[in-house]
């Protein structure tokens, strides 16, 4: 009897691998196993609608429990894998027992980077990744009055927006000179700084947190390196993640900025794939190896790995896209803007409807859009099909992006 596929990790990537395998007509056994005690759920609402009470534990489930039974997916929640025994083609569970595999998919995700300053272990210093953590934050938000958010990236700003919308006093502290500095152009950072400020969030950029202090073990205030002090009864930390590489490392698979995979998402062991937040993969839209933390990357890499396991192997070539919701504003991002050498704007910043088009070596590589969803969607087509467009064209609102998106792509390498 075939051993089938074992998928480690029950997040979006793990779930999607199992679902896509069945959709591909794969008939062999599938085991989906992970440490989290829940059936697979969506993470994006945890920093948004779930905190606001607009979604609950049931409504964020990716599929109801019956789905796994109906599709003969053996879902094992709340179990940790201790080791991969590559030579024997099996994984060993921490609680004992082994599972054999023909194909193994590591969808093991990432964990939060933690603060290493005095007071970081005080009660009331919280991080967000899992449903449990979101439930705790929601409970603590109900009682809290003054909140300091450390980190002005997507998670920090979404938490800040949620807390402020719930009527709390909120201060955001970002170490770099502007918000979301690694992913968006200054004009977008400025837009979101203005958005948060206008809603009463105190936004501080270029500030380092030196210490968190408390009383009776509970957080009371956050101190900056310049001596400024902010009272806080809750500190929410969003300072990035670290990929979970230990399982792969233990199996002597190559590790860099994540678990190293090739353009088919295979590790150095051809029976083992790594996908989603943990995978350091060659990405054609980056022109380099990257590790991406997004729903799109998780779902598309899962689909790619599932197709390969089902015998339809293809290079991973999906266009990256992302979004963040803060207050009522949705920022839509297509492509990867890292390393851009020219950025042009479409739309009037005063109108609250703008897109920024990022170019590198005269090629459009990414677009960030606020309240211009058509720019985002046609932009995806333009970037993915490598249609040649100029900064002058995209900055000119009389130029129809839909028409540009329909053009045939420029020849490779031109």
């Amino acid at each position: 009897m075939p051993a089938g596929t074992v998928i480690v990790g029950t997040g979006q990537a793990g779930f999607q691998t199992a679902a896509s395998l069945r959709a591909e007509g794969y008939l062999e056994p599938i085991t989906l196993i992970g440490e989290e005690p829940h059936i697979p759920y969506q993470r994006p609402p945890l920093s948004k609608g779930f905190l606001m009470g607009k979604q609950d534990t049931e409504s964020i489930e990716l599929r109801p429990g019956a789905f796994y039974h109906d599709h003969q997916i053996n879902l094992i929640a709340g179990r940790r894998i201790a080791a991969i025994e590559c030579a024997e083609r099996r994984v060993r569970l921490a609680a004992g027992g082994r599972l054999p595999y023909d194909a193994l998919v590591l969808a093991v995700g990432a964990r939060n980077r933690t603060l290493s300053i005095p007071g970081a272990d005080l009660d009331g210093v919280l991080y967000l990744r899992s449903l449990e953590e979101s439930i705790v934050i929601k409970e603590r938000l109900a009682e809290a009055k003054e909140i300091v958010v450390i980190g002005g990236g997507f998670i920090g700003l979404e938490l800040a927006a949620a807390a402020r919308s719930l009527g709390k006093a909120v201060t955001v502290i970002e170490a770099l000179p502007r918000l979301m500095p690694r992913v968006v152009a200054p004009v977008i950072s400025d837009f979101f700084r203005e958005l948060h400020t206008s809603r009463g969030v105190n936004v501080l950029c270029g500030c380092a947190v030196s210490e968190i202090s408390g009383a009776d073990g509970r957080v009371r205030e956050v101190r900056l390196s310049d001596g400024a002090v902010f009272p806080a009864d809750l500190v929410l930390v969003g300072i990035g993640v670290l990929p979970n590489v230990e399982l792969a490392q233990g199996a002597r698979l190559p590790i860099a900025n994540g678990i190293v995979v090739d353009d088919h998402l295979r590790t150095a062991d051809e029976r083992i794939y790594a996908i989603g937040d943990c995978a350091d993969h060659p990405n054609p839209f980056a022109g380099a190896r990257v590790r991406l933390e997004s729903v799109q990357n998780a779902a598309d890499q899962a689909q790619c790995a599932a197709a390969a396991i089902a015998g339809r192997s293809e290079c991973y070539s999906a266009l990256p896209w992302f979004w963040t919701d803060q207050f009522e504003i949705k920022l839509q991002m297509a492509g990867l803007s890292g390393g851009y050498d020219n950025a042009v704007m479409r739309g009037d910043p005063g109108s609250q409807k703008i897109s920024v088009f990022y170019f590198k070596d005269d090629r459009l590589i990414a677009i960030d859009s606020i309240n211009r969803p058509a720019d985002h969607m046609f932009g995806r087509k333009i970037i993915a099909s490598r249609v040649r467009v100029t900064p002058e064209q995209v900055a000119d609102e009389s130029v129809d992006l839909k028409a540009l998106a329909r053009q045939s792509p420029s020849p490779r390498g031109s």
Partner: protein
Amino acid sequence: MPKVIYVSANGAAREVEVPVGMTVMAAALKSGVDGILAECGGVCMCSTCHVYVDEKFFGKLPPAKDTEEAVLDIAAEERQPTSRLSCQIKVTEDLDGLIVRLPEKQR
């Protein structure tokens, strides 16, 4: 409870009772209707919950917002005049008997 009828690309129909206020997408996932993927979770970022709404009901729906309009243009199977994203259709008593046809592919 209002009923929604999902018709798969091969013509198989499935009738589902849907609580008022739930979306046509969420009801499909909850009741195990295949053919709606909902990868982005219902926030108008992907097109994997695309449906063709029966003409009798199309006019009863509130019009699509800009974000939905844009997404429909990138749907895996071509947009038609009654195309909608099922994540944006909230079921009401008035929509009892709603028929949606599912495209052959969603990605």
